[in-house]
């Protein structure tokens, strides 16, 4: 992993880290044990394996039932995520220069008090092997970045961000984002936000852009559709789910305009790892189809709880040091047939929300409050003025049932989450949520004062 971070005219972080180790998961006596170590000599391999077995035996003393794994074809293969320019072949000095250059352009603009630019690249080489006979080698590369401009004045500070949204891609992804070329616009939008009026209070129509929807989908659909969570396995930490298995096929999660599809075959998707960390191939399946709740992300252990014969291949560990757990897949909103201009033109009283801001949701994934990064008032079909400090609240199914328009594939973008926290001990997982702009009618706005 390489991380470059600059604040104003200083590089504050220029770091390269290497990590390697072995994780062993053992099923014995119908229960799991997992142990891992960074030390990889033969003696340590034996110790770790024996420890995993000892831990499994401890698990078996407090077991509800025997763990049963859904069948999966055994494969011996390789997977390599797409890339054109090896990010580790790009000199660090060039990355540092890029970050400082972006900051210089931001600071050259009036009222920009703080400029920040971060760039990152990560590569994982993993060998998975099982006593069932699977042997899978994967090579994944991921790049990302961000520029942030904070406009400061009159006792206030407002920040606008531009994301080089994380994806499985090489350095060409960072180059194509053209952070320097967008610096002036970023600074202008931060200043506009500083001088903008606070958002209104009331029930308004919201049009949410793809980057904003990434987080909305993640919190309101991704997490509640993790089957282990729905079965109560996360109850002591992140909570449970209102999407209980008895509601599969019957709960009206959203309007007919809403279809949320999990796609772990999307090449740039962060959950597209070829095969998950149980050796299950990446797949594509429905979570919500035409508004109806129809599916979960699953692992080999939980698939049987909803009578599915096969895992959806969504069990991942965040590193060799962590045990695979059910993870949100690349859950995305299927495109519709509208254009953004059409949605705006058909909105009498609303706000266009771009980018990510504050986010909080209850422990069953119902009551939420979200913010954003850029807000523009919509009045009588036109974008009129910038706003600041906009938040909105809702209850998940009511919110998604208020969706009455989704833009077409030309507006669709895949945006990734790098630090999805889950589990005890905490793991930081990654996944991508693609979406096009979508409109939600009469949403409660502005009560967070």
């Amino acid at each position, binding site marked *: 992993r390489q991380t470059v971070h600059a604040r104003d005219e200083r590089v504050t972080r*220029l770091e390269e880290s290497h990590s390697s180790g072995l994780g062993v998961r053992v099923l014995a006596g119908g229960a799991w044990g997992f142990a891992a170590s960074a030390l990889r000599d033969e003696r340590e391999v034996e110790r770790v394996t024996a420890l995993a077995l000892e831990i499994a035996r401890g698990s078996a003393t*407090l077991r509800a039932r025997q763990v049963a794994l859904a069948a999966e074809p055994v494969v011996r293969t390789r997977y390599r995520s797409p890339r054109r320019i090896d990010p580790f072949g790009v000199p*660090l000095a060039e990355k540092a220069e890029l970050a*400082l250059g972006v900051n210089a352009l931001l600071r050259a603009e009036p009222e920009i*008090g703080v400029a920040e630019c971060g760039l990152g690249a990560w590569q994982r080489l993993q060998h998975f092997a099982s006593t069932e006979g699977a042997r899978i080698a994967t090579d994944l590369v991921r790049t990302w970045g961000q520029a942030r401009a*904070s406009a400061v004045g009159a006792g206030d500070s407002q920040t606008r961000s531009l994301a080089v949204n994380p994806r499985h891609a090489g350095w060409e992804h960072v180059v194509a984002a053209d952070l320097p070329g967008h610096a002036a616009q970023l600074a202008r939008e931060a200043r506009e936000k500083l001088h903008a009026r606070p958002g209104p209070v009331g029930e308004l129509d919201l049009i949410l852009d793809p980057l904003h929807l990434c987080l909305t989908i993640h919190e309101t659909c991704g997490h509640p559709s993790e089957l282990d969570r729905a079965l109560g396995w996360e109850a*002591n930490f992140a909570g449970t789910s209102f999407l209980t298995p008895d509601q599969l096929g019957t709960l009206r999660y959203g309007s007919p305009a809403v279809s949320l599809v999990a796609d772990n075959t999307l090449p740039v998707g962060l959950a597209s790892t070829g095969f998950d960390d149980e050796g299950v191939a990446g797949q594509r399946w429905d979570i919500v189809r035409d508004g109806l709740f129809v599916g979960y992300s699953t692992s080999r252990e939980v698939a049987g709880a909803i009578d599915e014969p096969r895992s959806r291949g969504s069990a991942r560990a965040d590193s060799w040091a962590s045990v695979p757990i059910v993870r949100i897949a690349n859950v995305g909103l299927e495109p519709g047939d509208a254009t953004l201009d059409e949605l705006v033109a058909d909105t009498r009283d609303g706000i266009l929300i771009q980018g990510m801001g504050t986010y*909080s949701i209850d422990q069953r994934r119902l*009551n939420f409050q979200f*913010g954003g990064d850029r807000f523009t008032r919509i009045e009588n079909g036109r974008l009129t003025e910038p706003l600041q400090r906009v938040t909105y609240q809702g209850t998940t199914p009511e919110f998604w049932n208020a969706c009455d328009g989704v833009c077409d594939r030309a507006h669709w973008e895949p945006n990734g989450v790098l630090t999805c926290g889950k589990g005890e001990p905490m793991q930081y997982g990654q996944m991508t949520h693609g979406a096009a702009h979508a409109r939600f009618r009469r949403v409660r706005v502005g009560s967070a004062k």
Partner: protein
Amino acid sequence: MIERERSQAVLEQALAEARADDVELALRSTRAATTRFAGNAITQNVETLRPGLAVTAWFGRRSGTASTDQLDPQSVREAVRRAEASARVAPEDPETLPTLGPQRYLEVPSFDPAVREFGPARRAEAARQMVEVARERGLSLSGAVTLREGSHALATRNGLRAYAAESAVTGSCTADAGTGSGWAAAGHRRPERVDFAALARRASEKALAARDPIEVPAGDWSVVLEPAALAELLQWITWSWNARDTYAGRTFLSGRVGERLLGENVTLRTRPREPDLMALPFGWHGLPTVEDTWIDRGRIVRFFHDRWTARRHGVPATGWPQGLALDGGAESPEALIGGTRRGLLVTRFWYIRSVDPMRLLLTGMTRDGTFLVDDGRVVGAVKNLRFNESPLRALSAVEAMTPAAPVSGRMLAPSARLSAFHFDSTTGF
């Protein structure tokens, strides 16, 4: 963990290999184990050993960092070379300071060797004890028993040498009574100080009391916050008081340094030698952990300064505070409730996030035991609520407090009654 002698050997090797003008090394190793259960059965049971060496090298004012988790001599040598290679091409940093020299550290009792006896069988047994307590009451229990054993060592070219071992055992559990839930948690560096069965009893009693909750209206409420809830609010103050951002105009403290921002009865100190807290004798880049007052009768008198910003403003650089302790009061928990005419008793908060950093406006949910207090008595459970509130405003309205108690070993905090706390909406459970 890596014993002191071996730590020193690794660090001395790295220093000897380095050709840079200045070097800072951080070596740590952690053995971490978690036995996790849900629905009265173990669902996940893990143990990981993870060392790490971070090398920062300077050539003049240029620096670079490299890290590895392999500690054999070849890997250490390579980490040093990578850090130096990065440093050679890095831009100059005008804020470069020499690394720290020798420091004096407090004697902080951070390690109990008994942690080594808390193996897989004992952790499973602790989980079983907790589950049995819940089962006897007809409840479903989820929770985790964790162990951490580790070491931290630092060394610089200018002579800083630091070493500390640490241990931590924690237990937490959430009891499910169908229409209500309850939670309890504890942590200590000494395993025998965590009473797992007591945690399960407490969570179970709360869950049973939390059944059949009613909905109460959102709005401003008088609240009694249990220590965990109060600690979560307080933590956000300490996470948000970064001097660099403050002087750049980006925090709640910008333009308000020295003002009284909280109630006069709010005093926050660091007490790292407190036996029930888990602190280390040093922190950020080897800066000593201090015993000091950070909030003095409502005024923030000390906050995080990096070394450059500290020098610029003529204050000591102390790093992030460890061993936080909020001064409590003398009321008993019963008296706190008894003095509440009408209010809400909150066990804990969940999913707290910043809404407006300039006002430290936060949002979050109540969770796992929220109760209505009427005329000095707990009269029933309520459905959970979302708050939008600033800890600055909330902690300016502290009416009464109990003595402080440990919150999972991270902080000492009392229960407190606050006269006004804003809830914005409710949820359906």
